[in-house]
């Protein structure tokens, strides 16, 4: 209903004529609600009223309370002012008097949630007397925010609203009963008024006196008393009336009971469905709730599992890593009837022909095809080094080729009927001993290449031949094959071969190789005699009928693998294994086994990572065991935590970073408490010999000589304590090489 409209369009002068000045707010509803409040309020007011207020009756008090919305203080103030001073006047007011036509509007106003004009009613401006001053409660401001997008959840009704609702309801009941018939003409006031105005206007062109009308075109409204009850009652007669009378503008009479229509089926479906569906959670909510529950549950289970397995794995979130197939790697390994695997390192003095010998081996075994060798030959001839062509099979680097020396260990593979071999071609030059140590640390046995040409053998023995032999022995290599190379340069002389054999075997025996583990083979790398094919040189065949190099290699017994020991891998290389595998490492599994999905711990960085995938001999595999050269594709780790020489181990039995260790070492040079480099495979770090504990007997290993010697002479066995500058992952029985100033000073075993 358009109360705004009614109020705005009221002709105030008209209204005020009818207005009898009474400010009675209809109390006809008073009994129906709030009687309890009234009763309580009355008692309170009675208490607060001063003496001599006996003449004020309950009704008056209730009236006052009603006025002030049960505000006791205000009511008291009001009653005191009104009744104590001039009790007569109020009597009249209390009777209510005749109801004015204005009353419904005022009444309607009070229905509203809050009215400031009521709040400040009969409050004088300024100089408020003491007894009228009241405590102000913060006014009821509307809720903040824009009105838009409201949900139509029924708000909780305030007391005031409840009151208003009750009034409204009552008023409607009265309307239905026709009791308040007086109100309706008022409600229709503006409309009928409007209609009459229109009538005025329609008449005006006929009357030709339009100039008197307001410029707006709509004249000032005069209240004409049309009986509104007639309008809905007989519309037809009206129609007839307008069709034949000049009062035709009465067409505009509206339906006076025009109201909100009920929503259609469409609308009620659209807007009321909310209430129906709200108690039930939506399917999405159900799913989300279930998912969150499921996540909680699974993580909980995982935790308990992993606590029993290992505590470290607790921190793991397993979102991206490959799932482990939980293979029993050792059983899998037993099932596979694999050929023997053997790694050997090729050592020897620089220019002994190690690379050429291995190139010949690979070429003759058809690992490298003719075309490649032809190309190498051509290229080598261009550089004036035609004899290096075979060496280029292993020496791939440009610097290696241009200088004609091997710098880093080169890895290649070949297989015989019995065994798969991995060649580790070590550099012979003394500047690259650390690389040679790295290669030797991965080897099961060694091939020592000796240059048999005149003078070369002698210089070699003084040079790296001895050092290499000592190193591989101290790295744990017990079997050694000596290839006496370049024997064609001395025209396959047996004396030369025997001389070399005697000298070398004597030295090797002193170095700790057992005679049965030493084999000598006369051969020529450049021509390929006695390498794969048996030599046809009559000068050689006359005195040598033993095995070729490959036959000798095949005789090597399968090494026992440390499968049951905890996992240890020294990282030999770090590279980007493609888009899918941003971080890959390669190396030889020294002990233990692993499979896809395993967690690994990197030392010395102590970072955890996972095996996303792994390759054994460039073939994808699910597992790998000790002795194999593997490429691991890692996940969940940043490459900055890895460097070549780092160690990978299993988190359950990790290798510990230590800063000090005790070792039993064989001295090659004089050892004093001094600065040294400690090499363990690829890993090397600086440190110093802090203390030489004791000298040991070479044969028995028992303590010999005086305690705490100041110096260890070459060839002596000693127990030393080494302090490292930075902690390194070392553990017994690890083999370490101590070097100083570019020379190997000692090698030994951790204790």
């Amino acid at each position: 209903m358009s109360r705004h409209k009614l109020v705005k369009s009221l002709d105030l002068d008209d209204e005020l004529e009818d207005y009898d000045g009474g400010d009675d707010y209809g109390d006809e509803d008073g009994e129906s609600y709030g009687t309890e409040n009234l009763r309580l309020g009355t008692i309170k007011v009675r208490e607060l009223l001063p003496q001599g207020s006996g003449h004020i009756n309950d009704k008056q008090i209730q009236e006052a309370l009603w006025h002030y919305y049960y505000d006791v203080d205000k009511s008291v103030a009001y009653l005191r002012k009104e009744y104590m001073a001039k009790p007569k006047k109020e009597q009249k007011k209390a009777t209510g008097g005749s109801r004015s036509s204005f009353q419904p509007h005022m009444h309607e106003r009070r229905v509203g949630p809050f009215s400031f004009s009521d709040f400040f009613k009969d409050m004088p401006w300024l100089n408020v007397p003491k007894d009228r001053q009241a405590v102000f409660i913060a006014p009821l401001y509307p809720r903040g925010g824009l009105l838009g997008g409201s949900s139509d959840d029924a708000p909780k009704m305030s007391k005031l609203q409840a009151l208003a609702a009750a009034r409204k309801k009552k008023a409607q009941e009265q309307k239905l009963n026709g009791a308040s018939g007086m109100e309706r003409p008022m409600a229709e006031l503006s409309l009928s008024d409007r209609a009459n105005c229109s009538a005025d206007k329609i008449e005006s062109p006929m009357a030709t006196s339009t100039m008197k009308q307001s410029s707006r075109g709509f004249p000032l409204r005069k209240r004409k008393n049309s009986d509104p009850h007639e309008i809905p009652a007989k519309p037809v007669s009206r129609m007839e009336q307008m069709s034949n009378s000049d009062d035709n503008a009465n067409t505009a009479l509206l339906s006076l009971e025009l109201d909100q229509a009920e929503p259609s089926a469409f609308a009620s479906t659209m807007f009321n469905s909310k209430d129906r569906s709200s108690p039930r959670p939506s399917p999405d909510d159900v799913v989300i709730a279930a998912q969150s529950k499921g996540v909680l549950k699974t993580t909980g289970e995982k935790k308990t599992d992993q606590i029993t397995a290992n505590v470290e794995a607790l921190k793991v979130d397993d979102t991206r890593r490959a799932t482990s197939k939980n293979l029993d790697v050792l059983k899998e390994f037993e099932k596979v009837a694999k050929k023997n695997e053997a790694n050997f390192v090729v050592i020897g003095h620089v220019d002994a022909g190690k690379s050429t010998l291995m190139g010949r081996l690979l070429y003759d075994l058809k690992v490298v095809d003719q075309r490649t060798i032809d190309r190498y030959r051509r290229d080598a001839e261009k550089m004036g080094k035609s004899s290096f062509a075979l060496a280029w099979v292993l020496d791939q680097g440009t610097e290696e080729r241009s200088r004609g020396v091997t710098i880093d260990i080169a890895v290649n593979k070949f297989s015989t009927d019995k065994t798969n071999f991995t060649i580790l071609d070590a550099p012979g030059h003394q500047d690259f001993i650390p690389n040679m140590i790295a290669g030797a640390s991965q080897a099961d046995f060694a091939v020592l290449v000796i240059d048999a040409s005149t003078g070369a053998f002698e210089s070699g023995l003084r040079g790296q031949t001895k050092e290499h032999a000592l190193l591989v022995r101290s790295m744990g290599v017990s079997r050694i094959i000596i290839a006496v190379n370049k024997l064609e340069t001395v025209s396959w002389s047996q004396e030369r071969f025997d001389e070399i054999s005697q000298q070398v075997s004597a030295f090797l025996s002193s170095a700790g190789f057992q005679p049965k583990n030493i084999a000598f083979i006369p051969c020529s790398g450049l021509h390929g005699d006695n390498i794969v094919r048996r030599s046809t040189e009559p000068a050689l065949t006359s005195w040598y009928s033993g095995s070729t190099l490959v036959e000798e290699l095949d005789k090597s017994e399968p090494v026992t693998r440390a499968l049951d020991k905890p996992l240890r891998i020294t990282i030999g290389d770090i590279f980007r294994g493609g888009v899918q595998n941003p971080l890959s490492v390669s190396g030889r599994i020294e002990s233990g086994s692993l499979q896809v999905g395993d967690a690994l711990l990197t030392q010395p960085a102590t970072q955890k990572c996972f095996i996303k995938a792994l390759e054994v001999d460039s073939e994808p595999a699910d597992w790998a065991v000790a002795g194999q050269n593997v490429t691991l594709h890692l996940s969940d780790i940043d490459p900055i935590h890895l460097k070549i020489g780092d160690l990978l181990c299993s988190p359950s039995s990790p290798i510990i970073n230590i800063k000090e260790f005790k070792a039993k070492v064989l001295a090659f040079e004089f050892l004093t408490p001094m600065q040294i480099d400690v090499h363990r495979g690829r890993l090397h770090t600086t440190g110093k010999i802090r203390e030489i504990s004791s000298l040991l007997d070479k044969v028995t290993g028992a303590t010999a000589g005086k305690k705490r010697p100041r110096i260890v002479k070459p060839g002596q066995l000693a127990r030393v304590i080494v302090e490292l500058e930075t902690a390194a992952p070392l553990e017994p029985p690890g083999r370490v090489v101590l070097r100083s100033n570019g020379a190997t000073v000692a090698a030994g075993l951790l204790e």
Partner: protein
Amino acid sequence: MTDRRRINGPSGGTSAPVYSKYLTKGPSDVDRPTRTRAPNVLRKMFLKTGVTPSASGSAYLELEASKNPKATSPGLATLSTSGLKLTCTVHGPRPLPKSAPFSPHIILTTHVKYAPFATRRRRGFVRDASERDLGVHLETALRGVIIGDRWPKSGVDVIITILEGEEDQWWGDDRGQGSTSAGEWGIMSVLSGCITVASAAIADAGIDCVDVVSGGVAAIVRESGNEEKPSSINLVLDPVPSEHQEILAACIVGYLPARDEITDLWAKGDIGNENQESASQNYAYEDLADNAVQAALGSYRVLVGALKEAADMKMR
């Protein structure tokens, strides 16, 4: 402009065919809907604000379909008349895009679109001329109502989707002749509804207005005569085009009752006084406008009632 982006349905009528052999009455004497309301009675209106939670303000307006009390023949009930269903969303006031030039007052954008299924004649997905026309009229009606100075550099978008529109004529009159004599009478009722619903949505959005504007339509219709009743020309409020054989003229106003101002007025048609023999039936365009104002007042009351209801919900 053809719409190449979508696979559109046929542009013609989409109602299921009604076979004449199933009609209990002959196809020729299918009951045409007639106006059962008094000429001065508006259709009942359902108006609800706050229907779109994501918009700043929104409203839904529905005019009840006029029922044909005699429509008992099968299949034809749905064809008789339609109600009007409009939904309006108001987005804003929100900042103008950076590319827009400075504006000291709010920029009002109106957008009126028929849903493709809104009328018997299928509407395209791209706004056609009549829809753009509606948008311009709506903007005219609303522009003066919003107190635009309070939001410099901002814009408000009023988007109305007509879910069910008013037919331009009774479907029975549209049988193949391709008669275009009817003109677009339905657009008048639609515009009136658009003004009212947009006003409600703007109020729901909490945008300051001088008053709520409401729309109203009045029309002069010619009722064809028969034996007992000669043909007559009547002035009716809130005309439903399908209920009248011929609409001579119609007028729609956007009216501000509190200020007694008209923000938009659009009259069309020819009353044709010159060939009327009875002077008493002379209707002037002023009558038309005045009665449209009366209709606007009727919808104003519903509008205010709905807004009050919504406000009561929010004020605690």
